[in-house]
């Protein structure tokens, strides 16, 4: 009898333990995973402004801005970041850019509506380890538990795709940066808005540039990493290159994780192209460029994805020379209030110089296009709130649909077509090239489009 009792007791204990393990943790009290987000609102915001006096975000004039309204309301922006894993570096830059925007808004006293309501944005983010399943879990959490008002995106196409699915499922507005995938934006999304130039337009400009810089060029080789993003770029580039009269002598993908390009370069050389277009991500891009250089491949025009705009691309030394890369933004871009006026568009936000200087002052590093994208995420949302004069999601969507303006990051306009809703329409790429300055140091210059160039293109030997 007694032993039966103990047995039951044991069952009870096991049951309770397992229940506790399996379920309690994530349940009502936001225990483990719900631990507060990392470094988000930096105390820096309350301290004195930085010495270089970062320029105020030129908030659109709010005509009858009631002075000193009530307490500013909180506006929670949620997203995930890759603090670990493959996308760590770019993701960090993106957050830094966003953080800078946040500082600027704080300095301006928040986002003000016409009725005097002020919103003070705060950010909350979790580490997604660069993994899609974590992205989805964490976005669900941001939406349902943290009650994020608006969503921003993680970095990289694959992760953004995963996040967009969740945000669309939950009817949230999300502004994405760091994702250029076309396919993602052709799923019939209603509330997802893309800041990056889509992959399909990533390298088409390079083909145009080739035509201009090397008028004799006839044959091009398109080589690309076999991943989602680079494949989309290449798939769009091939018909375009043909349409403007090039012969594509080689169109071939290489496996993600390819380390050695020597045999592939032999194959490319054998096809005898006048230019190489394509690429993938950083590691393959640098190795490819380096081996191209070492093998003294005499191709005058090489434009590859992602790697060249990274400052560390210059680690490979002279091998970087002459390599062209598409970029969403570069510190030398010439978008300004004047050029906006010329294009008959409104200009919004800080000037390019102001952004670049403030970034350099705060992080002791020049901003990359990831940083600019991060800042632009916030800026676009801010503008949409001001235009909508509300934080109501439906009104924000309407404002974003209507948006057509220029910022330091470039022109922004979203597709309103049902099939491709939210896809970036206006933003264009700039093409930068590694060149040597007068002192013999490697620097980047914008070479295309011609109206935005900071230097003339130099052909490889």
């Amino acid at each position, binding site marked *: 009898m007694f032993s039966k009792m103990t047995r039951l007791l044991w069952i009870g204990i096991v049951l309770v333990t397992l*229940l506790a393990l399996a379920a309690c943790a994530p349940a009502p009290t936001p225990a483990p995973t719900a631990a507060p987000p990392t470094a988000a609102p930096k105390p820096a915001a309350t301290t004195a402004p930085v010495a270089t006096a970062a320029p105020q975000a030129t908030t659109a004039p709010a005509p009858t801005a009631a002075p000193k309204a009530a307490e500013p309301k909180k506006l929670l922006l949620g997203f995930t970041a890759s603090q670990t894993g493959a996308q760590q570096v770019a993701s960090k830059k993106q957050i830094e850019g966003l953080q800078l925007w946040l500082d600027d808004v704080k300095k301006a006293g928040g986002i003000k509506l016409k009725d005097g309501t002020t919103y003070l944005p705060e950010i909350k983010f979790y580490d997604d380890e660069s993994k899609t399943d974590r992205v989805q*879990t964490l976005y669900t959490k941001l939406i349902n538990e943290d009650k994020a008002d608006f969503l921003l995106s993680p970095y990289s196409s694959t992760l953004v795709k995963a996040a967009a699915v969740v945000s669309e499922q939950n009817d949230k507005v999300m502004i994405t940066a760091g994702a250029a995938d076309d*396919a993602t934006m052709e799923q*019939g999304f209603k509330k997802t808005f893309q800041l990056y130039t889509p992959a399909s337009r990533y390298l088409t400009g390079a083909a145009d540039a080739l035509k201009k810089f090397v008028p004799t060029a006839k044959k091009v080789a398109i080589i690309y990493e076999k991943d989602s993003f680079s494949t989309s770029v290449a798939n769009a580039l091939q018909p375009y290159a043909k349409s403007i009269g090039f012969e594509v002598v080689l169109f071939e993908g290489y496996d993600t994780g390819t380390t050695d390009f020597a045999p592939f370069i032999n194959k490319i050389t054998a096809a005898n192209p006048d230019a190489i277009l394509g690429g993938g991500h950083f590691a393959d891009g640098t190795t490819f460029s380096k081996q191209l250089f070492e093998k003294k491949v005499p191709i005058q025009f090489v434009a590859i994805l992602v790697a060249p705009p990274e400052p560390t691309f210059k680690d490979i030394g002279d091998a970087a020379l002459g390599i062209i890369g598409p970029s969403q933004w570069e510190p030398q871009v010439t978008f300004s209030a004047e050029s906006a006026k010329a294009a008959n568009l409104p200009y919004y936000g800080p000037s390019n110089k102001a952004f670049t200087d403030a970034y350099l002052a705060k992080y002791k590093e020049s901003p990359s296009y990831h940083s600019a994208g991060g800042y632009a995420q916030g800026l676009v949302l801010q503008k949409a709130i001001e235009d909508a004069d509300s934080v109501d999601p439906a009104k924000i969507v309407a404002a974003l649909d209507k948006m057509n303006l220029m910022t330091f990051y470039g022109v922004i306009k979203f597709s309103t077509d049902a099939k491709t809703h939210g896809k970036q329409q206006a933003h264009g790429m700039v093409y930068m090239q590694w060149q040597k300055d007068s002192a013999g140091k490697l620097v980047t210059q914008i070479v295309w489009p011609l109206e935005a160039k900071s230097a003339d293109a130099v052909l490889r030997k």
Partner: protein
Amino acid sequence: MKTLSSPFIWIILVVVGGASLLPILTNSVSLREDMFLMLMLVILASSINIIMGYTGYVSFGHIVFFGLGGYLAFFLMKEFQVQFMLAALVGGAGASLIAFFIGIPVLRLRGAYFALATIGINEAFRSFFTNFDLFGGAVGMFFNFSVYDAYGGAKNAGQLAYYAMVVLALVTIGTSFVIKKSKFGLGLMAIREDQDASMVLGIDPARLKVLTYTISAFFPAVAGALFFFKNGLIEPGPAFELHRSIEALVMVMLGGYGTVTGPIVGAVVYERLRGFLITDPTLSNAHLVIAGVLLLLIVLFVTAGVIGWVRQRVPALRRYLE
């Protein structure tokens, strides 16, 4: 059936089932997401345990079936609008069939050779799918959101996928238990202890192993189908992620290899621990290091895993902790 009269299986099913109801009772979507992932890991770990814990064959690349099931089902759903549960079952059956044909030659290998072969198989499939344009190649496949309309919208589809995952988890655990307790399972353990001696006992190791491998491929495949259905997109990288496979091994080891409860406890503990480490601001940078150190300590000092350890220490519990 004698096996079903064991109190253990009912306890464990009730506990897991009960825990799965929590998100529905509390109506918390994010808890549901957490549980969805957790149940998926339980399924992965349990099915690896079926082949590894019972026969001693360390399948490093078991995630290949997760990917295969996911891809097959996704293709059916996308191209032929097959209902998702049917597609998932077909995906599972397809993966099992592939496991059957792979298993016949590969299970002849022993020890390290088998482990290496499973890695090779996973990588071969991953690179194959990267190039296989019918399934989207490197870009993968994605649903148009209208696919979910058939299930009452994307939100509702998530809920349905969750129910399916709960049922799958319970079936996996049940199967794991029945195999362990059956004569079949006994044969497997004999193989684990000494394959050559088991033949003397009249056991046909080759047949038994292939059958087990085929069964153990089914569950991750269905789980993959459900996961990618909810995900809305599938790509070769996340579908055949070797790392996830190794993590599932860690879970089995953590909980206790060769037990039914072990993989469940292992999956829950591992996932909670990781969740805790990566969201804690001070620990998140070091989370890999901390997890590694903990794993090492367990491997070195608690070789039998949590459940194995409890079973050794408290013999009275053995009947309730298979």
